[in-house]
């Protein structure tokens, strides 16, 4: 072990002592522990039977699925997860679509109002949702969007962030390729979908991941719109379940585990891409 650490620190070009490396690992292990332990505890608690729930053992003496059975009986959890999936996938797809169209227009044409349009899109980011919520709520109810999945999707179908992210990656797209496409007589629509979009797979994938995760974790707008539990998304469904079941910790932990399971699985599978897309959103 010591040799291992030594050779590793030599490889990185430093003259670090092993003690230093050990401290660094200790620090990272501590941070990872703080990050992951609460989630581990949630999953473990969900597997503990009713008489075992208050024990502080790190693994249940007799793991049981009774909490899960309780949740499935008391709460339309699968329906809610399906709703959330529909909302998140559609929102992400629409944000990519509207973002691509707007970014293409801003990159391709020189418009006198381009600066204004750009500013308008960027500024919309600064408007806190709580400031516009009352008019939005009234408008949504007039359109009959209360308690519907459409109501959760439509206002989020465009995001300033999506337009700006795609705009930036599209600006570095080689103009020669576009010119060549135009020489061949391709219209703008075809250039966008057959030349530009396929070459922007990486930024589109990042954006889709980010948009999916943030739609899955959206809380405020569903809180305003949702009425019935079977038409709601995981965030609201969980909150309703918590209010009803109070301190039934086992079932609560099981419901919370089920609600976060899809997104945790996606993270496990796509972990590198997820981290990268978050990092790219902050840093070029």
């Amino acid at each position, binding site marked *: 072990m010591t040799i291992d650490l030594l050779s590793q620190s030599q490889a990185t070009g430093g003259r670090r002592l092993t003690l230093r490396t050990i401290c*660094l690992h200790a620090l990272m292990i501590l941070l990872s522990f703080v990050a992951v332990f609460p989630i581990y505890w949630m999953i473990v608690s969900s597997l503990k039977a009713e008489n075992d729930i208050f024990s502080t053992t790190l693994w249940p003496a007799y793991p049981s699925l009774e909490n899960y059975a309780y949740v499935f009986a008391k709460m339309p959890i699968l329906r809610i997860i399906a709703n959330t999936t529909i909302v998140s996938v559609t929102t992400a797809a629409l944000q990519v679509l509207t973002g691509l169209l707007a970014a293409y227009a801003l990159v391709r044409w020189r418009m006198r109002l381009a600066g204004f349009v750009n500013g308008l899109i960027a500024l919309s980011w600064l408007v806190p949702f709580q400031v*516009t919520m009352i008019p939005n709520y009234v408008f949504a109810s007039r359109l009959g969007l209360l308690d519907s999945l459409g109501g959760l999707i439509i206002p989020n179908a465009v995001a300033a962030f999506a337009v700006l992210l795609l705009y930036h990656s599209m600006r570095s797209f080689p103009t020669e390729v576009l010119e060549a496409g135009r020489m061949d007589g391709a219209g703008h629509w075809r250039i966008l979908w057959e030349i530009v979009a396929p070459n922007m797979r990486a930024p589109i994938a990042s954006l889709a991941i980010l948009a999916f995760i943030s739609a899955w974790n959206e809380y405020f707008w569903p809180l305003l719109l949702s009425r019935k539990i079977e038409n709601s998304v995981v965030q609201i469904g969980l909150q309703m379940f918590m209010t009803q079941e109070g301190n039934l910790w086992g079932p609560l*932990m099981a419901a919370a585990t089920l609600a976060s399971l899809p997104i945790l699985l996606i993270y496990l599978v796509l972990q590198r891409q997820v981290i990268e897309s*978050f990092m790219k959103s902050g840093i070029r």
Partner: protein
Amino acid sequence: MTDIQADLTQPMSIAIRPAPSRQRGAGIAPWLYLAPALILLFMWTYVPLVEAFKLSFYQWNMLPTAPQRFVGLDNYRRIFALSEMRTALWNTLFYIIGLFPMSVIIPLFVAILTQDLQGRLRMLYRTLIFVPMIVPPVVAAILWRWLLSDDHGLVNNLLALAGLGTVGFLTDPHCALATLTWITGWKLIGFSTLLFSAANAGIDRSYVEAARIDGASRWQIVRDIRLPLLSPTIMLLSMMTILFGAQWSFAYISVLTNGGPLKSTTNIFYVLWEYGFETLSAGWSAAAGMITFASFAVIAFCCLRLMKRYAVYDN
């Protein structure tokens, strides 16, 4: 420079720069491509913003049939007189300042200290500390409620074992605000650490080598090379914390405390929601919203000026 910064700082200058291949006088085509985005932005952001401004001069109880009564500046006067508002503003400040250690300071230290870690373990750490960022906020709220529960929560059990007695993390007015700030920050540590690590790894090694040859100590390298070159990231994350920190805590307030106990955890965004949808005073909510929007816009403007002036870029 980051994408976000670039756009917030200079949306105008970017777009005006001429590009030879772009067509002029394209007529209506560009507007067709922009239409979906712009129409949605107007429908759900700008028109509502104007309507909220109008509403801030009216009294209205949110019922579709009830009339809206013009009251001029009364809503604004009321709001400033409410003691609740003062509590909310102080708490908003507390949330923002309380988040700094977790969203900027600790992650910065961790990134600098761990720059030498390599290989698989580094990826494993990254993966693990990022997990809270992915977990839905309501799940985070519920699992912390269980961990910190007054009776039989793991943390209180351990405190009792250590002979320290139990703490009402969410029920004691002196603790609740700090608890909610911690939960908000818990979700952020991983994100900030990653951003700092990436920025740190992006620093040209030759600067560090050159300084080392000149006999600079570890600390001097950090102070004179790393910190200045990390300043854009430091400022970006500080700005995000200031502008969005209080908003990030909304879900936890709503799920865990409803602003209590004794209004100790409420903040400005929660008050806006309460006025609008609990006490049904749309005018008050709109007036408070306008003040909030104006203040945060001013803060954002100042942040951007500071960022432009003080951030160091490696060009």
